């Protein structure tokens, strides 16, 4: 892709978020969402291979459908209640429709089917942006929508996502599919956090972004797409392998890494609000997904291959590692940050 066009798309994506956050009428929210989607589509097809293009098309279709449902919901809302802003929730049918469309956009169970295929088709870097940045618009709408009536649905979907994401990733050997299922699981936790309090949801989202970006980037550096390649990464590039291993442990929610604190905060707040069932379901889901996280971490950090397996050492991509060193350190020092993080969400 030409270097003159990509900033335009990036700008468009940024402005879409601004648009969503600053608008009061639901049409403009819809506009922002569409803008973001449309601006992102070309960036997905950077490499022009058939796999990428197929993933892009799938993404486009699903997002378009979600946008259509959003519009429909907005129309229903306007026609029945004569309100146009999203923040004045009354709990009507249109709102539910809008919420379902956001769930579709985010990739929450039961509307998650596209996440796996899309992330598998794309390479790591666009996949990373998909799973992190493209959630921001959806989340911004979601936090405005959550109310008592919607909360139950979101909680159920969240718990189900955590479980589904865990179970789905059990049999995966492709790293990107694994990460897709893991993002579904984490999205479940995120949404449960949003149900409790918006600040919590944002906190969990920021934590998730911060700790998944190094994982994606270092996997990209190692060029590991299959589990067998991960097994050999310790020998070829120990630093990257360590970062990936630690990052996966952090995603699994093991202390003292930072991922644990997000999960811990969500659990604490859920229990404070007496949503014990949801908390238990989330934890069970996290336990299931622990298996594949540990498997990947084990392969990255523990196994020493006896033979030299040929992997492509990509020295061109090495520069990204140093940029992300800070994020990695943040990951490891989650213990120190927890005090600040937990006080922020109160």
């Amino acid at each position, binding site marked *: 892709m030409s270097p003159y066009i990509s900033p335009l798309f990036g700008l468009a994506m940024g402005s879409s978020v601004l648009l969503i956050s600053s608008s009061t009428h639901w049409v403009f929210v819809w506009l922002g969402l569409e803008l973001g989607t449309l601006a992102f589509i070309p960036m997905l097809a950077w490499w022009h291979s058939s796999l990428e293009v197929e993933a892009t098309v799938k993404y486009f279709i699903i997002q378009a459908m979600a946008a259509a449902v959003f519009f429909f919901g907005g129309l229903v809302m306007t026609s029945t209640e004569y309100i146009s802003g999203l923040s004045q929730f009354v709990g009507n049918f249109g709102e539910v429709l809008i919420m379902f469309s956001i769930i579709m956009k985010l990739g929450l169970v039961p509307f998650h089917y596209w996440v796996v295929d899309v992330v598998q088709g794309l390479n790591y870097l666009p996949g990373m942006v998909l799973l992190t940045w493209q959630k921001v618009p959806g989340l911004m709408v979601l936090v405005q929508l959550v109310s008592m009536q919607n909360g139950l649905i979101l909680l159920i979907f969240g718990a189900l996502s955590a479980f589904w994401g865990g179970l789905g990733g059990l049999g995966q050997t492709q790293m990107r599919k694994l990460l897709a299922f893991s993002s579904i699981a984490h999205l479940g936790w995120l949404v449960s956090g949003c149900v409790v309090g918006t600040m919590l949801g944002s906190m969990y989202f920021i934590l998730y972004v911060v700790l998944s970006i190094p994982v994606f980037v270092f996997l990209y550096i190692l060029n590991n797409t299959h589990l067998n390649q991960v097994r050999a990464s310790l020998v070829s590039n120990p630093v990257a392998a360590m970062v990936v291993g630690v990052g996966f442990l952090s995603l699994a929610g093991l202390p003292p890494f930072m991922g644990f604190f997000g999960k811990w905060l969500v659990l604490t707040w859920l229990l404070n609000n007496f949503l014990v069932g949801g908390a238990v379901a989330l934890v069970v889901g996290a336990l299931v997904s622990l298996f594949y996280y540990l498997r990947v971490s084990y392969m990255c950090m523990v196994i020493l291959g*006896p*033979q*030299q397996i*040929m992997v492509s050492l990509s020295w061109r991509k090495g520069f990204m590692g140093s940029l992300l060193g800070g994020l990695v350190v943040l990951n490891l020092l989650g213990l120190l940050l927890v005090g600040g993080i937990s006080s922020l969400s109160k």
Partner: protein
Amino acid sequence: MAAVGRLGSAAVRSFLWRRTALLSSARCLSKNELPGPYPQTPEEWAAAAKKYGMRVEDYQPYPDDGTGYGDYPMLPEEGVESKDPWVDWDDKWHRRNFGEAPHIHIDAFTRQRVNPNQKYVVPWKQMVAALLGFLGFNAVMLYFGEQYKHAIPVAPKQYPYNDLYLEKGGDPDKVSEEEIKHYEFPKS
């Protein structure tokens, strides 16, 4: 150069295919050397006997009733201590020859632990009879001792001052009425 390296590693890998015992310093038993499930057919029986280095006539696994150990042979229970110390074993401390299948409970039968067939100079029954006889005899006698306890006769304690009448809160006006004597002079 790189091609040579690739060829060489491919050759090594193809030679080492399924030859894990030669591969690395971390030795591990291959799949067919490990114990397996209970042998069902005579061929499996013979193969299992060969695996453990035993004759087919000698080989007998534990019965498959849920408490068995798969196809591991049921060796006679003898502690290491009771094996003959004068035989020229390969491993003298454990009194075992190389390749011999150890008993499944070998960790309990080592030199300073359980020895199921320890030979006693005094016969077992005699030992148990002696100990139980001694303890039983004592138990019986102790029972009788409880029936007839030892006690030297004592009288109730005698206190002065009319059995401590005033100290125990008696009425001062009625002192002269209660006169308790703890002694008597013999009439000559």
